[in-house]
């Protein structure tokens, strides 16, 4: 499933062109030698090789089609019963056999969006630092660490979320925001959830005591901070996802920046540009399509991530009538967390079909995001590199 990072097309095309002539031909024509010309056996080998690689790529295509066929087949009862309302309504009830997936679809998209908002500035900043600014003695170990982070299994991030992130959010973010009048000191006594690091936390006794207006009542942004959160929340899911995709986006973006020809930077410096002007106006525009690609591949990862999100998102639709809430503090579901949670106890029949339909929708969303990514990369690359 892991996709290759899109490289800047104009740089990759000549590379391909340069390696185009097969070495066998040039050898036999340029240097007269005793080696006989390519035998028919070798040609036959070429054909076999071609056929095998063709079958391999065909099999991927077949697997995808087969998957799609199976998913559609198994979800047909739900598709017939609920039609489009499956993705526009919110009610999910095993007793009344009424199944709708809007909160889950929304949860998947919203948690991924939060992840990108948090992750993209950090990733791009880190990539710029590693590629343009960092001295070598920082660059090498930091790059190694980032690649290491990308390799940690998601359940580990999930556990970290449960034991560190959630208690922290609950005690030092959600409650102070929702009930600013309760002194933080009081909370220590009441909720002694985390025992680690109490004494070095950077909040003073009455830090929140001075603000008596809950953020939820602030015009314009209040909707983000409503609800009574126990810590398991959209924000927690978005943060965990951000932590997971940041190393990935950083690593890909860094590679893209490193691949920019030195002559581009020198051209800018030669006109009297500063380093910052060069980065902002030459390096980043040159890498734009690649960076967009990196971000969208990161989004693809966030959309499909299951384990870590399931562990921190709360797995409960918010109590709003629509079943959908923009509040960062509310708990929620994602499509994959629903599947992970409910599949085991699903009742065969409509219930199971509805769950499979969720999988089908998730499949569709992921494919859609990837197609959009390709198109976006293609068009920005064309824009930047003059349609060549």
């Amino acid at each position, binding site marked *: 499933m892991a996709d290759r990072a899109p490289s800047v097309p104009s740089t990759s095309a000549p590379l391909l062109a340069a390696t185009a002539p097969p070495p066998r031909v040039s050898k036999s024509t340029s240097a007269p030698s005793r080696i006989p010309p390519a035998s028919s056996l070798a040609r036959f080998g070429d054909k076999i090789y071609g056929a095998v690689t063709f079958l391999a790529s065909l099999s991927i295509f077949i697997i995808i089609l087969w998957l799609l066929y199976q998913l559609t087949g198994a979800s047909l009862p739900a598709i017939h019963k609920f039609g489009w309302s499956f993705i526009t309504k919110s009610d999910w009830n095993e007793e009344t056999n009424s199944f709708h997936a809007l909160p889950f679809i929304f949860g998947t998209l919203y948690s991924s969006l939060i992840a990108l908002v948090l992750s993209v500035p950090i990733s791009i900043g880190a990539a710029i630092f590693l590629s343009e600014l960092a001295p070598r003695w920082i660059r090498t170990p930091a790059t190694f660490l980032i690649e290491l982070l990308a390799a940690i299994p998601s359940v580990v991030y999930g556990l970290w979320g449960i034991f560190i992130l959630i208690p922290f959010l609950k005690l030092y973010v959600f409650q102070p925001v929702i009930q600013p009048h309760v002194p933080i000191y009081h909370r220590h006594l009441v909720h002694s959830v985390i025992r680690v690091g109490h004494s070095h936390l950077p909040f003073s006794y009455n830090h929140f005591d001075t603000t008596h207006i809950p953020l939820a009542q602030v015009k314009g942004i209040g909707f983000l901070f409503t609800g009574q959160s126990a810590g398991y929340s959209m924000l927690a899911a978005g943060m965990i996802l951000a932590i997971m995709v940041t190393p990935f986006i950083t690593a890909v973006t860094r590679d893209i920046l490193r691949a920019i020809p030195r002559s581009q930077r*020198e*051209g800018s*410096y*030669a*006109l*009297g540009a500063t380093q910052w002007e060069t980065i902002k106006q030459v390096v980043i525009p040159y890498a734009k399509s690649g960076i967009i690609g990196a971000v969208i591949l990161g989004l693809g990862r966030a959309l499909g991530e299951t384990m870590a999100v399931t562990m921190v998102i709360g797995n409960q639709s918010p109590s709003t009538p629509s079943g959908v809430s923009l509040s960062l503090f509310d708990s929620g579901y994602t499509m994959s967390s629903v599947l992970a949670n409910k599949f085991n106890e699903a009742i065969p029949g409509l219930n199971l079909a509805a769950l499979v339909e969720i999988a089908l929708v998730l499949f569709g969303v992921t494919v859609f995001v990837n197609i959009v990514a390709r198109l976006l990369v293609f068009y920005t690359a064309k824009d930047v590199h*003059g*349609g060549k």
Partner: protein
Amino acid sequence: MMDVTTQKPSSLQDLARSQTSTPTATKILVENVDFYYSAFHALKTINIVIPDRQVTALIGPSGCGKSTFLRTLNRMNDLIDGTKLTGKISLDGEDLYDKRVDVVDLRKRVGMVFQKPNPFPMSIYDNIAYGPRIHGLTNRKKLNEIVERTLRGSALWEEVKDKLKASAFALSGGQQQRLCIARTLAVEPEVILMDEPCSALDPNSTFRIEQLMEDLKKDYTIVIVTHNMQQAARVSQRTGFFLRGEMKEFGDTDQIFTSPKQKDTEDYVSGKFG
């Protein structure tokens, strides 16, 4: 233009006199310059007087240090880790490597055209406006003027005036190189350094750029590196011959090509090696 050589010690006056037959103002004075890439000694005791508003050509076999030398003149080598320069280079009498010199300012005064055309990933217009903009010019009308003037100056205007908004990458190699020259002119430098500007171009584009140099030298001091000796002979008034990091001979172009004083120079210009 003030003639700075008159204020220099007599040995430098001698140097200036020995390198130029006709008296002209000195633009850049290079005194005892040594240059190192970490441990590698790339330039050895270079002394050159670069005259104002003339074309100075630097020739020599590949790897002899021509580009390295050229890049010391706008401190482009500062961007490479572990490089070191000793000696003195002065522009109109100011020490380029003085601590107080603002490199950004210096590069504005000493522009550079590279071996491979390197337009930025933006429109033709924005490529030229890039320099003036980073130096604080936002006035649209003035920018328009600069774009037109520099494109005319680099003999590209007629070809691109109807597609200024098109990507610079859509131009041919020769057009891109002229665009890069226009881009350099747009920041109004005093000196233009050119590092084999025609080596990636076809003969026709080469011809146009050589013509351009002829025009430009009325207003600019040009230093061009070339491995094409005919080109050096055609475009330059002074020529310096580099070999293995040393400047073997420097003098009037006619003299270098017709009666070189050094054996190495003679061998090189007569095509015995290179």
